[in-house]
């Protein structure tokens, strides 16, 4: 019997389809947010692709971050001058911290993908493969530096880490990239 009560509670609090009076104001906000989403999606997906290294995680990341932003859209508009920049920073952070919290198999289990997912069009790009192989935080530092053109200090404040850590992560990342690209790059363009 008691099981019916939570069910009813949800019906009342959650999925009643009648727009309530206080919902009316949100319709306009939602439409505004919808416009924003439409406008920024391509750019954010691309950025997410760079951050996460694959289309699926990119879509996942973008969706999650945008939903959180949309849930407090008027606040974000009021408090941040530039919601796009805000979204990008949020994505960098979410990417790094999500990776720390949850492991990959969890994401896969939740939204199964893999095998028949769109073939990765970067497969023939050694540098892309090397970047993808970096740990998330190192990759985020690379993306913020070379995609976003942020300074060390800006990267530090975006990711909430010290400048020293930014520097060391960048150095490690560059060293890994060089090591991975050793054969192709050193023997090719980078031969002195």
């Amino acid at each position, binding site marked *: 019997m008691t099981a019916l*009560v939570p069910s009813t509670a949800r019906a009342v609090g959650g999925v009643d389809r009648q727009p309530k009076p206080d919902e009316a104001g949100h319709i306009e906000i939602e439409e505004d947010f919808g416009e924003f989403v439409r406008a920024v999606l391509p750019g954010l997906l691309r950025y*997410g692709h760079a951050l996460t290294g694959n289309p699926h995680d990119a879509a996942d990341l973008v969706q999650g971050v945008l939903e959180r932003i949309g849930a407090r859209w008027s606040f974000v508009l009021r408090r941040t001058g530039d919601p796009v920049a805000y979204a990008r920073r949020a994505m960098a952070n979410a990417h790094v911290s999500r990776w720390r919290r949850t492991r990959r198999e969890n994401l896969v289990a939740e939204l199964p993908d893999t095998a028949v997912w769109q073939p990765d069009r970067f497969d023939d790009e050694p540098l892309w493969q090397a970047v993808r192989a970096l740990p998330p935080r190192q990759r985020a530092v690379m993306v913020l530096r070379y995609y976003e053109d942020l300074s060390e200090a800006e990267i530090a404040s975006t990711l909430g880490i010290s400048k020293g850590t930014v520097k060391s992560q960048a150095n490690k990342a560059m060293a890994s990239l060089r090591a991975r690209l050793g054969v192709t790059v050193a023997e090719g363009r980078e031969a002195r």
Partner: protein
Amino acid sequence: MTDNDRPDERRPDLDAELRRLFADERLTLPVAEDIENAVVVGARRRRRHRTTVAAAGGVLAVAALVFVGAALTGIGGHLTHTVTAAAPPSLSATLTTAPATTTPTVRNDAYLLGPYGADGLKLGMPAGAALKMGYSPVSIMGSPYAQGKCIGYTVYPTLPADQDGPTTTPPVTTDALPTKEAPSAARSVIEQKLAKERLVTVLVSARGSIVQLGGVTGLHTPEGIGLGTSAKRVYAVYAEQLKAAGAPASGRSVAVPVPGNDTATYVFYLGADGTVTSLWLRSDSDVTCQ
């Protein structure tokens, strides 16, 4: 180990290569048609969840009142012979029929996941039948995907079955599914968006039958578990089933034998904050995706 002592050996070439890489057009991804809606709906869900949590006490109180009110209405109706249900006035009959006589709860039948399926979709049903019933495959991410030997599709009813309330009381018949009668143009934007909260992801086996459905969806189980429900609540609500199954009460997902269906399992995935982030109804009897 060498955190700070390694000099920055960046060579201009690698810098330039990285800038070139991140400017590469191939990083661009196609935007799926429906992702905007999915995002807007997801944002609304989060906002409401926040509001709901903040007002949880109040909501529960209101729920209790509505519940009692509904039960009273049911009993009263029976006594005055106006209720259509021919059930005897036993307590359980009253409890199960009473909510169905009130408009708000009737609408929610379409939001149930389990015990056999969701809306018109049922475990074991051929995937083609779902399309015939009016479910359109949309893909939030751009294309169908594979899990093992199964193919996953995200689907939604082309028109919500329950927009007009009580006429759709039977939850799982083809009648409850979209027909051409309802002019879609007349529906408000918000209704259309809300309808998509019923997005369901189905996994279809190599044999072509639905073996799993759910995902990140606005649906909830008959026991009231949906997105955002706390793990604690999941364990409490399904304590009996979990105990019977001897399932461990920890981890990133919780598998619960479905009450009322011996051949299916609910799988709730939990996010880092300990709430349900996706929910599935999985068939135990059909072939698996492996």
